[in-house]
């Protein structure tokens, strides 16, 4: 117990007297006159239901929320009357621009309606009848092991920050709560799929885990979001699409379509957050670049680690014979190019078009593109 009450209520005469009065029917009712706005919010679109956007009114709303949240340091929900003596919960993040994103309320509503169930929405019975050749099966099990690792840390990161955000960032807190649930479901579905292949979980990835540790230990939510939502999840989104492309069964294709939906939503939040930061605080551009410099270094090391790269080559080529490996290398190289191009494309759209010039990763992408062109 690190936080103790300043009062022992069972020994506090004034408190006990007041409690006794209320229980005898002598109500105080001071809370009934609390100063607050009294909107009667209605759905703007009845088919959509009552959304957070419909609640964007007056002091309850988010549009007019100030950049610095000085008045509320408690769990008081935004718009409620703040009573004397509310505790200072010492939120780490009290600046709107550290967390906010255009349309965050829309991403939350979308997340809530697009939840799915790893236990019942995947046709596991169909998969029970599918046997994978040993080389492809082991490669797939290794990919699933890697993805389970990724998704476990992707669950931890939003969960770690959830309680550190000021309570006034209600919509963001709810969105990252859905993200933690999404990522937990991804870890679940990849673990379940790995353990249904007959090959079990394979080898954990040192390079990948170092990258994930960098991501987890970011100094601020804004840095964590930049690397988690935009960079890591952007690249993982392309990886999920590639995994759908190379999936051996229709059930696996459905699995990857379902996880890619969630991932694309998280990337959407990341893009709209970075755009918000650059629109409102352009002076942070250099700090963002510095963080991306190191993040891209980790990504390069993790993405090109043996236990990540080789399964893709085997799955893309559909086997381990010389010809199939060559085909797998060709397809995987094209995937890597696509992955990096889409990442830089997103950054440019958010307002960082100069990232390509600065990035060592982009220079490698250019070399890779030239090598592919020469080989074609």
């Amino acid at each position: 117990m690190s936080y103790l009450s300043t009062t022992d209520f069972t020994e506090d005469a004034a408190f006990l007297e007041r409690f006794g009065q209320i229980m005898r029917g002598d109500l105080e009712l001071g809370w009934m006159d609390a100063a607050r706005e009294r909107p009667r919010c209605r759905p703007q679109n009845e088919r959509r239901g009552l959304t957070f956007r419909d609640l964007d009114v007056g002091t309850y709303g988010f549009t007019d929320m100030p950049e610095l949240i000085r008045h509320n340091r408690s769990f008081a929900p935004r718009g409620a009357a703040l009573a004397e003596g509310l505790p200072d919960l010492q939120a780490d993040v009290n600046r709107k621009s550290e967390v906010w994103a255009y349309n965050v309320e829309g991403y939350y509503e979308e997340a809530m309606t697009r939840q799915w169930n790893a236990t019942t929405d995947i046709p596991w019975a169909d998969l029970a009848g599918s046997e994978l050749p040993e080389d492809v099966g082991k490669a797939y099990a290794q990919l699933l092991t890697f993805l389970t690792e990724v998704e476990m840390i992707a669950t931890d990161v939003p969960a770690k920050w959830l309680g550190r955000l000021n309570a006034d960032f209600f919509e963001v807190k709810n969105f990252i709560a859905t993200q933690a649930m999404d990522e937990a479901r991804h870890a679940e579905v990849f673990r379940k799929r790995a353990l249904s292949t007959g090959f079990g979980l394979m080898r954990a990835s040192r390079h990948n885990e170092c990258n994930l540790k960098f991501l987890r230990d970011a100094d601020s939510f804004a840095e964590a979001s930049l690397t988690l939502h935009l960079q890591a999840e952007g690249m993982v989104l392309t990886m999920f699409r590639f995994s759908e492309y190379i999936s051996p069964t229709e059930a696996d294709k459905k699995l990857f379509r379902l996880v890619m939906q969630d991932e694309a939503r998280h990337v959407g939040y990341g893009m709209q957050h970075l755009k918000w930061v650059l629109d409102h605080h352009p002076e942070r551009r250099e700090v963002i670049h510095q963080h991306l410099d190191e993040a891209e270094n980790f990504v390069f090391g993790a993405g090109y680690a043996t236990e990540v790269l080789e399964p893709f080559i085997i799955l893309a080529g559909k086997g381990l014979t010389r010809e199939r490996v060559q085909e797998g290398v060709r397809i995987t190289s094209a995937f890597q190019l696509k992955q990096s191009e889409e990442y830089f494309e997103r950054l440019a759209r958010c307002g960082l078009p100069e990232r390509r010039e600065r990035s060592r990763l982009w220079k490698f992408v250019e070399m890779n593109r030239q090598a592919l062109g020469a080989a074609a």
Partner: protein
Amino acid sequence: MAIAFPSTAFFLALRDAMRAEQERFQRLGFFDTTFGVRVLPDAPGGPAVDHTLGFEVFDCVAVREGLDGGTLDFVLEGPLTTWREMLDVIHALGAADTAHSINTLTHFGERLRVRYDDPNGHDKLYRFAESIQQFFDLAARLEFTYPDGSRPPAREGSAT
């Protein structure tokens, strides 16, 4: 009477099939995007057939001939041969197989291409991937003909 692919009537029939599956699409969640479908002629020089499909909440709310400039999140584009191959598989199997899902056909742009201006719009193809796939899979229920008058193969195991 069989409808033609590609045509506005074909996409309106898909819309109606989607409305008949309201519960299934509601279960998949909000589906908010407007995208284009462009069917290119197999022979060079012929006209492309373009349609705009709009989705909102759980429903297909717009089917229009042509591409709505500026409002589209992305355009799925490819030759009639590829669209036909995809629809043949869907019609025969009831849904796309591993080689003919929208993501697989578009992934490297070799069969179908995804055209877009804004990566955020492009990502909607993936945010709503399962809804889009299930929308196209509804073609399994339609009776339609291709421009040469041929029909897609009957459902495997059916009496026809």
